[in-house]
């Protein structure tokens, strides 16, 4: 699938854990300011693929990559990973706020990057919390510990924290899987709002979520060697009503997975 306005791109990208190939030659283009969902059965490398874009896989020893990954035409592996993470933020499966106050959680990113002015930080914190639709709920006590919030609030706090860094891309690894249905819905609404300013890539094992919340969907599968590969990629509407590959159709209709 070819796009006009590409934010992220991979070309013949493979990833190895030692000798084991986890991802096989992925060619994909992620469009700007849209929500791309990545779906597929467990173990097919969705999270590993997601973590490519902010080079979190570097943290695992023995990881080797092949091929190219680009953000806005820049080679991701030629950049300083710390700088890359200024542009590409991540929200994890389990909410993981720091044992600090709400304010300090959100301000952590900007502070690490050198912003010290209290007024400026306060502005950023408010903007980010509004962006994550959490401001109204916590504005009265920003000094409360981040751990004292409910699960759904904690996850929105983590989203606010990621927003505070002002990235272009937000990667989400099953952001709602640890939350109850009400909180999940809130997160999905939030994502819809965010796509206006950010490029969002979201890994999900919940197909209904992919179907209702994303613009584009990429379907990954595992081959006989347990390597993950991209089967099909296209507008969500089309993927779910008229998939081009047979495997895609079988997965979507729930015949396996």
């Amino acid at each position, binding site marked *: 699938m070819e796009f006009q306005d590409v934010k992220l791109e991979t070309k013949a990208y493979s990833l190895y854990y030692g000798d084991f190939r986890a991802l096989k030659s992925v060619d994909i283009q992620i469009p700007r300011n849209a929500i791309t969902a990545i779906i597929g059965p467990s173990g097919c490398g969705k999270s590993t693929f997601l973590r490519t874009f902010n080079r979190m896989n570097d*943290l695992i020893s023995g990881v080797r990559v092949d091929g190219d990954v680009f953000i806005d035409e820049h080679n991701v592996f030629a950049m300083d990973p710390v700088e890359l993470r200024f542009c590409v933020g991540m929200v994890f499966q*389990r909410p993981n706020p720091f044992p600090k106050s709400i304010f300090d959680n959100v301000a952590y990113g900007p502070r*690490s990057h050198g912003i010290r002015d209290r007024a400026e930080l306060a502005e950023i914190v408010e903007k980010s919390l509004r962006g994550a639709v959490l401001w109204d709920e916590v504005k009265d006590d920003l000094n409360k510990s981040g751990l004292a919030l409910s699960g759904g609030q904690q996850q929105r706090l983590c989203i606010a924290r990621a927003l505070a860094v002002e990235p272009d891309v937000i990667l989400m690894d099953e952001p709602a899987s640890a939350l109850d249905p009400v909180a999940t819905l809130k997160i999905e609404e939030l994502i819809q709002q965010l796509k206006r300013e950010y490029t969002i890539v979201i890994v999900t094992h919940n197909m209904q979520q992919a179907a209702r919340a994303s613009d584009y969907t990429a379907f990954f599968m595992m081959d006989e060697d347990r390597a993950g590969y991209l089967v099909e990629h296209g507008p969500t509407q089309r993927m779910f009503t008229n998939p081009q590959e047979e495997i895609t159709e079988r997965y979507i209709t729930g015949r396996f997975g």
Partner: protein
Amino acid sequence: MSEGTARPTTMTREDVTFRRLVQLAVSQREETSRAKVNLARRHLIQRAAFGLLWLSGIAAVAILLAVVGYVVVQGAKVVNLEFLTTPPAGGLATSDVGGMSTTIVSTVYLVFWTIVFAGPLGILAAIYLVEYAEEMEGGSGLVPIIVSVVRFAVEILAGVPSIIFGLFGYALFVSAVALGWSFSLRSAAATGACLVLPVIIRASEEAIKAVPRSYREASLALGATKWQTAWKIVLPAAAPGIITGIVLSVGRVVSETAVFFVTFGGTVRAPDTVFDLSSPGRSMALHVYYLAMETRAFDKAMGTGAVLILTIILINLLINIVSRRLTAKLKGR
């Protein structure tokens, strides 16, 4: 019914079954009673054994009360405000007059400098071992070897008896004419630092390892560097464990005698200020030893010993309070 009446030449099936049942019932009753006797015996054995076990448990408490109780009671006869604030009078041989004030001061200074030397060193080493070394596991072969060597060295240090540390300190710091340190606060603190370094490294390592991985990942994903993550996220989260290690070391320095016996000197004069590093001195524990062995002033020895014990108890309480409060803060309360 008499036995002489005619008996059937063949037994009916009912007879056989009945017989078997009777045999079974009789033998079961025997077994039951055997089992019963056996069970009663086993219960008796258990009761005796558990009685002994209870005695052991009580004995431990009794010994504690005996030792602590005796020393504190005897010491209380001697300890008062004057005792605590008056220096021991006379030189090495006749310090049976006066109090113990200078020994308290010397102990405080000794603890201070030992922690200053060993604390940062130990914590930084622990950070390296946990945070930086692991990432290189797959990489060049040199670093993992270095890490194993360091861990092995820490293990050895933890097992060395204190008198050997004393010998080492004596040879390296006290005897070395070129260094010029002689018996002094410096020599004692430096040697003490070697002694407690493994304690601090171990406690810090454990505390740092216990910090959840998700915190680090979140921090790195936000664009922080490894050091920023370690300094601002990991260390604060590991603080209770690290502080516990430090307070444990403080307790160690206060109780230790052999190490400082050969490095601190024996004079009852305390260093003038905390920065008077070249001055020799006498810690509280050393004072107890000298009073008992050389001066033979057992009453003062008991007094000093009582103060020493109470200090240790306070330090232990401090460990509990500090770690509980900090852990609560981490849980969001």
